[in-house]
């Protein structure tokens, strides 16, 4: 018995729409098996993961808060991936954005700096993220160095740099030697939408980003170029589209968005700079981008779903002592199923039972 792929005459639109749902379904089935292996009641675990967080207002807000960086980063990554440029260092760009924005917050601490502080932080963070993403992009375009490896290496560098700052020059002198800056001043903090709640201005910004990306991809020539360069490089060359320039552009945009997400996270829910500000947002955003089929609206939905798994994972850990790593396994398996189901859009899967005679005749 053998699995054979047969190319479809044209890509299947129906499957393109339902494939993420099939993938989620298959992942949940796999998780049930994994929970059973771990000796946990699968139904209770699924409830803790996917239902419980949806039943109280605090968790719902928390999901939106967690989805904010995921969606923002994933939108940028989707532009890269559409243009066939592989930025996988968003985690590093996120950290550098957080560091750059925090610089203003740290320098203006305790002064009577006005309302310009937060906007300046956001702008600087986006610029720093973009510049940091331009390193692998330029290495790729100018020297042909694999952007996959260089962008990833820079994640470790950014992580160490942040670690140095909060243990060294930026450490809060009254922080009992903890590696953290002092709490940011109110003017350097992302305002909350509801007093006493968790939702903050970042959630509005991310919606604007989604809308902007939808317009860019659906309504502009640049968006068309990005899609053509990725899908049909030869056609793009004949059309006179410069693939190199698009690599630079998409890396810069995705770096800027990742940097922006970084400072919003630090100046928002966290409130100060410290190590471990990201539970792997930059990597989870890769899953979000693919689960959302590299489409802005799809990414919004996918980001909310992945955020749900983060919150659900925390609740499952507290309620049922399910290790947090299960969430990572869940996310990894989900990406596998998403990719496998995507293959269904282009190919038909057929099980072939080799017939001896045919094999001899053909071989």
């Amino acid at each position, binding site marked *: 018995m053998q*699995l*054979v*792929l047969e*190319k479809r005459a044209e890509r299947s639109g129906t499957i393109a729409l339902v494939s993420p749902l099939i993938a989620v379904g298959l992942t949940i089935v796999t998780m049930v098996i994994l929970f059973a292996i771990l000796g946990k009641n699968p139904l209770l675990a699924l409830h803790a993961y996917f239902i419980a967080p949806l039943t109280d207002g605090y968790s719902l807000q928390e999901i939106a808060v967690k989805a904010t960086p995921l969606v923002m980063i994933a939108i940028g990554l989707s532009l890269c991936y559409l243009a066939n440029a*592989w930025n*996988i260092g968003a985690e590093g760009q996120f950290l550098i954005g957080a560091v750059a924005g925090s610089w203003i917050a740290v320098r203006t601490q305790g002064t009577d700096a006005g309302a310009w502080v937060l906007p300046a932080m956001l702008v600087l963070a986006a610029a720093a993220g973009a510049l940091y993403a331009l*390193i692998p992009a330029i*290495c790729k375009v*100018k*020297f*042909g*160095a*694999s952007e*996959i*490896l*260089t962008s*990833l*290496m*820079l994640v*470790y*560098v950014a992580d*160490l*740099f942040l*670690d*140095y700052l909060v*243990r*060294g020059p930026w450490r809060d002198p009254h922080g009992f030697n903890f590696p953290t800056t002092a709490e940011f001043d109110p003017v350097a903090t992302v305002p909350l939408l509801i007093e006493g709640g968790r939702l903050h201005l970042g959630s509005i910004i991310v919606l604007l980003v989604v809308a902007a990306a939808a317009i860019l991809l659906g309504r502009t020539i640049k968006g068309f170029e990005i899609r053509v360069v990725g899908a049909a490089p030869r056609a793009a060359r004949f059309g006179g589209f410069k693939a190199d320039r698009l690599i630079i552009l998409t890396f810069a945009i995705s770096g800027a968005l990742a940097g922006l997400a970084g400072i919003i996270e630090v100046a928002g829910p966290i409130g100060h700079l410290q190590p471990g500000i990201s539970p792997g947002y930059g*990597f989870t955003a*890769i*899953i979000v981008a*693919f689960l959302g089929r590299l489409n802005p609206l799809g990414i919004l939905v996918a980001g909310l779903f992945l955020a749900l798994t983060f919150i659900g994972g925390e609740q499952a850990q507290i309620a049922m002592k399910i*290790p*947090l*790593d*299960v*969430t*990572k*396994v*869940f*996310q*990894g*398996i989900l*990406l*596998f199923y998403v*990719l*496998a189901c*995507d*293959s269904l859009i*282009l*190919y038909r*899967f057929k099980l*072939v039972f080799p017939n001896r005679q045919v094999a001899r005749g*053909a*071989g």
Partner: protein
Amino acid sequence: MELVEAIILSVLAASTPLLIAATGELVTERSGVLNLGVEGMMIVGAACGFAGAWLSGSVFIGALFGIVAGVLMSLVFALMALGLAVNQVATGLALTILGVGLSGLIGAGFVGERITPAVHLHIPGATDIPLIGRVLFGEDGFVYVSIALVVGVWWFLYRTRAGLILRACGDNHASAHALGYPVLRIRTFAVMFGGACAGLAGAYLPLAYTPFFVPGMTAGRGWIALALVVFSSWRPGRLVLGAYLFGAVTILQLHAQGWGVGIPSQFMSALPYLATVVVLVLISRERSGGSTAPAALGTVFVPDC
């Protein structure tokens, strides 16, 4: 004298996991498959290797556990990237994300435990020769295996018919298929070999490098191994050189931290990663004329039957 010997020994120890993992990936890539999941296979190999050694009390069994874990991970990749013709870059990333989660899950019960690390060879007389004695005759088994592995791979790729066929699959899968070679089966074996090596390289870390398991202990070594394959221009000889150079950079920064050079330790720790970026740029620029990469590297192949 003693210091020089100690440095050489520590460079060898730091280089060995890179060399083993990169050798496996080199074979995989020579067959035309880009498996970016080396880091994921390594970290699962580390967790399973430690679990195996702790449960059985034997480093050898632990290493076998690591290898098997690496192969199982690579089979997931093969099913996706070869069986279902999924984009290899995305599949490799997925494998790494999955591996990091799995290793945390498997290793959670073993954090804080210790094992007796791999024994070092001791030949009375030979091992006691100053300077070179311990370097040549006093290593642990992994170091000798890594050397044997590279030599074996070189011999296989350039001196056997099977190696020639494997390289043909990597350079032009359509031609290899037309000649009647089972491209996908050959690539599956190459991916499995890469997985076995990555698993072994991962297992080396808790079994010989440090005698305990820490989550995330591979710390990007799988990615550096991938960069080494590029550095080597897909040739085993240059791979050895590259792996030892990187080991040397790692050890240099550790020693520099120890000597209290006035540079913050984080900057020194960033050196291997920065060196990787610089080397990739230099190497890629050097061959701007034409690439030495296998021509079909990373491309999807679906046989038309």
